C-alpha cells in the first residue's frame, strides 16, 4: 500500500493550482513523470558542492564528482540487474536506440569497405531483416527505417490485434533465419499493453538475432531484470522514472564487443592526428562531458522508487487502472483503445470520446485541472491501425490516487456536456 498523501507531499509541483485555481490532477506520467524534492535537491546539491569534470581531473572536486557519478551508475545498473560497466548514459531513450542503430550502420559500412569490423554481428547485408512491432513508439521505429534505407535491410512487423495486443500467431515466419535484430517495446506507451517478452526473445535467440527492449514504460513501473530476460540491449529514460530530464540509459549485454557511436573526448584510449583507439566500456560510449548532475539525480530517483518498492508501485497502478477502466467504460461514448482487462497491462489508458477530437477533450479536462495527453503519442501507426486520428491518454504513477481517477471519470462526463454530446 502506498500512502499517496505522503508521497504527494514529496512532489512540490503536485500542490500547485492550475488554470482557474484548480487542483492539479497529473495524469501524464507516461510522457514525463514529476520529480520528488529529493531528486531536485540531489541535482542542486551537486552544483552547490561537487561540480567538476568527471574522470578528468586530479583535484578534490573532480575526484568527488567522479566517485558520486560512478556510484550513481552502480545504483542505476543494479536497479535493472546489470553490472556497472554494462550501462552507459545517453540523453534520452531515443538517443539510446539511435546509438544501437548507428552501431549497425557503422559496422555495415566498415564491412562494405573492407575495414576490419569490431563485431560482425552488427554488419548487415541487403535482404537481412529487422523485426519490430506495429505498436512501436516512433523512437523505436524511425531510426530502424533510416537504418533499413541505408543498408538495404528490410523491416518486418509483428502485427497488432483489435484488442491492442500483439498477434504472435505468425511469429515463426516473421522472425526467421534472415532476422538479424528484433527490437520491441515492453509496455506500450499508447495502449498500456505489456508484451510477452520471453516468447519474443526466445524466438529471436533461436534464429541468432540480437534483441533490443524498449523499456521506457516498464523500468519506471515494474521490477525488471535484464539478466533474467537475457536481452542484448535495453533502453529507458530517467525523466519517466522520477529522474531529471537529460539522462537516458543504454544497457548492453556485451558492451566491449559493441562498436562505438559518438566519438570524441573521454571515450578514447590513444589519439594521433591520423587514428584513434577507444577505451573499454562504459567510457567507450560516453563521449564528451557527461550529464553528471542528472545521473546523480537519477540515482536519487532510484532510491525513492526502491524505498517504496517496484512491486508495490505496479500493484498500485493496476488498482487505479481497474477503477479507471470501470469508470470510463460506464460512459457509453467512451471507446477504450487497448486492453480492457488487467491481464498483462500497466497504468496507461487511451480512449476516444464520441466523435470529439482528443484535442478538444484534453482542453476541457485541462480546464478542470486534469492533465492528460492527447494526440498520436508518438505511435502514429497505432492510430492508423485503429482508424482514429488521435486519442486521449491518461497514465498513472505512484503519486496518483482514487480521487484522481474519479476526477478523470467525472471530467470526461463534463466534457460531453460541454460540447453538448449525449
Amino acid at each position, binding site marked *: 500500500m502506498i500512502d499517496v498523501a505522503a508521497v504527494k507531499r514529496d512532489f512540490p509541483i503536485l500542490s500547485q493550482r492550475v488554470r482557474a485555481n484548480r487542483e492539479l490532477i497529473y495524469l501524464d506520467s507516461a510522457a514525463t513523470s514529476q520529480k520528488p524534492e529529493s531528486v531536485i535537491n540531489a541535482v542542486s546539491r551537486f552544483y552547490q558542492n561537487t561540480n567538476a569534470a568527471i574522470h578528468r581531473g586530479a583535484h578534490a572536486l573532480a575526484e568527488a564528482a567522479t566517485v558520486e557519478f560512478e556510484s550513481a551508475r552502480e545504483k542505476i545498473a543494479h536497479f535493472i540487474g546489470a553490472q556497472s560497466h554494462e550501462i552507459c548514459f545517453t540523453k534520452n531513450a531515443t538517443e539510446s536506440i539511435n546509438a544501437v542503430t548507428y552501431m549497425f550502420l557503422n559496422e555495415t559500412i566498415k564491412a562494405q569497405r573492407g575495414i576490419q569490423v569490431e563485431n560482425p554481428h552488427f554488419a548487415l547485408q541487403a535482404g537481412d531483416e529487422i523485426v519490430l512491432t506495429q505498436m512501436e513508439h516512433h523512437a523505436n521505429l524511425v531510426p530502424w527505417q533510416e537504418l533499413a534505407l541505408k543498408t538495404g535491410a528490410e523491416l518486418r512487423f509483428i502485427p497488432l490485434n483489435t484488442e491492442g495486443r500483439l498477434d504472435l500467431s505468425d511469429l515463426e515466419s516473421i522472425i526467421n533465419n534472415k532476422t538479424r535484430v528484433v527490437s520491441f517495446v515492453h509496455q506500450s506507451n499508447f495502449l498500456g499493453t505489456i508484451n510477452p517478452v520471453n516468447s519474443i526473445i526466445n524466438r529471436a535467440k533461436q534464429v541468432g538475432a540480437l534483441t533490443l527492449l524498449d523499456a521506457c514504460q516498464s523500468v519506471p513501473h515494474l521490477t525488471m531484470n535484464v539478466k533474467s530476460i537475457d536481452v542484448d540491449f535495453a533502453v529507458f529514460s530517467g525523466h519517466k522514472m522520477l529522474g531529471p530530464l537529460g539522462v537516458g540509459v543504454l544497457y548492453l549485454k556485451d558492451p566491449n564487443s559493441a562498436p562505438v557511436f559518438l566519438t570524441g573526448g573521454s571515450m578514447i584510449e590513444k589519439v594521433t592526428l591520423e587514428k584513434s583507439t577507444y577505451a573499454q566500456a562504459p567510457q567507450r560510449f560516453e563521449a564528451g562531458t557527461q550529464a553528471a548532475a542528472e545521473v546523480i539525480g537519477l540515482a536519487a530517483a532510484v532510491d525513492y522508487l526502491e524505498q517504496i518498492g517496484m512491486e508495490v508501485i505496479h500493484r498500485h497502478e493496476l488498482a487505479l487502472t481497474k477503477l479507471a477502466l470501470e469508470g470510463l467504460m460506464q460512459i457509453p461514448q467512451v471507446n477504450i483503445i487497448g486492453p480492457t482487462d488487467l491481464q498483462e497491462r500497466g497504468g496507461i489508458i487511451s480512449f476516444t470520446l464520441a466523435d470529439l*477530437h*482528443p484535442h*478538444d477533450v484534453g*482542453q476541457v479536462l485541462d480546464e478542470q485541472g486534469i492533465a492528460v495527453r492527447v*494526440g498520436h503519442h508518438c505511435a502514429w501507426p497505432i492510430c492508423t491501425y485503429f482508424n482514429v*486520428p*488521435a486519442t486521449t491518454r491518461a497514465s498513472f504513477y505512484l503519486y496518483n490516487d482514487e480521487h484522481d481517477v474519479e476526477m478523470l471519470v467525472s471530467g470526461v462526463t463534463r466534457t460531453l456536456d*460541454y*460540447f453538448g454530446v449525449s
Partner: protein
Amino acid sequence: MSIDNLYQEIILEHYRHPQGKGISLENGVEVHHVNPSCGDEITLRAAIMDEKVGVSYDNTGCSISQASASMMWELVHGKPATEVLALEAEFLALMQSKGQGTDEDESLSDAIAFVGVSQFPARVKCALLPWMALKDALLQNLRSNNE
C-alpha cells in the same frame, strides 16, 4: 483565460456545420498539411482564376482547426489573391497577439473570434493549419503563373 474564450459560440457553430468542406474544385494546386503534434490534417486545393481565388479543402482535426478552415473558406473564397494574402497576414498577426487582438482585425469579420485561441499557445497551430496550407497553395500558384 477560461476555455469559453477558446470555444466561442461561433467557433463551435462552424465546427458543427463546416462551410465549403469537401474537395470540389477540379483544378488548382493541391497541398497537404499536417500538425505533427496532434495529427490534424488538411488537404487543400486552390486556384487563381481571373485574379480571384478558388479554394476547396477536406480535413480532419479538432474543433479549432475545423472551424478555422470553415471560416477561412467563407472569408477568402472568390476574393482577389492579394486581398487573400493580406487576410492571411492579418490572421497570423491575430494569432500571435496573445489575446490582445490587432488594429486591423475587423477585416477578418467572424474570424476575430479566434482572438481567444491566441491565448492558448498549444492551440495556435490548430487555428493556423488551414491558413498555412492556403498560403502554401497560393504561393505555388503564383510561382507557376510566373514561369
